[in-house]
């Protein structure tokens, strides 16, 4: 079943549309198409398979967030976009590992992606902040909040999972936990 669902997507436009609608076949298509390129980039420049995977998946997230939030079409090919972001990320990683003055000889076109990386960095910080606040919550509040707001569980499912007597209790618990989370989340100054 899995194999037959292969979809040959030709142009960038179809891929970009697929990204926007969250199409999982397109996601797989993109993964298979671009991962080898990024793997090549990382492995040819002092990296290994695992690092290539991390860099590629990080790149994926940046590309997805950019395309989903930005109605304007890309100014370059998807391939160039992937390559440019992955290259920046990898250089940053190498720098962090103490490699000095590295140069990567490009096999692909490269564009400037400062804006994208800045956005991604801000989002990382936001997520850190939320995780930090969640970390303070303790159980079962943390799980309850995550289940409701992140894992899309309904109050009924939560009632069952946490063994509350009815969904009103779950609602009250959720409220209490959220109020606590707010204190941790907003008490931290930026």
């Amino acid at each position, binding site marked *: 079943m*899995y194999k037959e*669902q292969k979809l040959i997507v030709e142009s960038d436009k179809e891929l970009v549309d697929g990204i926007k*609608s*969250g*199409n*999982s*076949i397109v*996601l*797989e298509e993109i*993964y*298979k198409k671009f*991962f080898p390129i990024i793997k090549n980039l990382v492995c040819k420049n002092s990296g290994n398979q695992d690092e290539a*995977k991390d860099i590629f*998946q990080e790149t*994926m*997230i940046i590309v*997805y*967030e950019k395309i989903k939030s930005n109605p304007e079409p890309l100014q370059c090919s998807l391939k160039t976009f992937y390559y440019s972001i992955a290259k920046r990320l990898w250089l940053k990683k190498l720098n962090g590992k103490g490699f000095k003055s590295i140069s990567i000889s490009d096999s692909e076109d490269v564009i400037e992606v400062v804006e994208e990386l800045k956005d991604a960095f801000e*989002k990382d910080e*936001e*997520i850190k*902040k*939320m*995780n930090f606040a969640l970390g*303070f*919550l*303790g*159980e*079962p*509040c943390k*799980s309850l909040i995550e289940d409701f*707001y*992140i*894992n*899309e569980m309904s109050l009924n499912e939560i009632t*069952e*999972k*946490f*063994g*509350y*007597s009815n969904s009103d*209790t779950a*609602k*009250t*618990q*959720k*409220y*209490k936990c*959220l*109020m*606590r*989370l*707010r*204190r941790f*989340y*907003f008490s931290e100054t930026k």
Partner: protein
Amino acid sequence: MKNEDKLEQLEKYLMGEMSPEDAVAFEKMLERDEELLIFTENHAKMIESFMLVKERQKLKNSMEKIHLHNFSFEKVDDKIEVVETKTQEPKVFKISYWKIASIAASVALIISLGAVFTFQAINGGIKNSAFKSLRRDLDKIKRSHNILVQNLEVESEKKGSATISSFGGSGFAISNNGYIVTSYHVVKGGDSVFVENSFYQKLRVKVLMVDPKNDIAILKVDDSNFNSWENIPFVLKTRKADLGENVFTLGFPKDEVVYGEGSISSNNGYNGDSASYQISIPINPGNSGGPLLDDKGNIIGIISGKETETDATGFAIKTSLLLDIISKIEKDSTLEKPLLKKSPVLNGLKRPQQLKKMQEFVFNVKVYN
């Protein structure tokens, strides 16, 4: 309207799930109530943050599956679930900041005449909640409670064994294929762990998974003398126990099994910790990790500790947290699935009969290091 209902309304509004009429009414309310407005703005920020985490998590999960399927060199189990082929419409986040901002601007000069409702720190305030979160910290448990690890005497002389039994607690079997539950603090730091009772001389177990935060450990029998059990009598119940409900436990505060009974004295544990019950069973060192059962013989918790200042005040971790860790084991394809009992065996029996059926499956957990 209760605060939690207001929150529900507000979330409906933010998610665009409110009918247009209700939305207008809600906005009217925002205009009148500055406190609510600020709350809404802040809540929108948090919802946005949750969305971000959610989207990333989904993408990450899908990518892991794709990677495993296409680029992993390890043998891939055919049963591995592939990415969902259904195109999921993401929930649209319809919050309109400009709208809230414009309301905010127009409200700036209006003095709100008595807040419709106030989102205030609920019962207890910060001091209490900070303490609650510390509760899960094991070191804290150590300091605040008598850690119920029994300091066993050196047994080497008696048994002629070279190993020294250093501490112990209680545990109970939850599945016929050898899964045993105890407290994390009982097995923490031990090199080898054994369980025993009057039916089983000594079974070697390995510590399979631990949840230090909730003080739970899952053990599995790893002994050549063991095949499987029959007739495990325990059913795990997540139903919330009622205040005053009769509860009982079996455990090993000494080398012989000891019965204790009492009732649920509070729905929350130490300093209001909602992850545990407070119970009026006299708890002694060595009781940790034992089962807490209701009248019908369902497991509703794991004995975890007691308060130092008062007698006969014990605490038990609620079963829902145990089920969390069990579901982790169930999801891990490298581990044998624990086969939990669903049909109650002990229900309707008199207490002595219940205890008879249970005794084979409550263990003295001995930890050597």
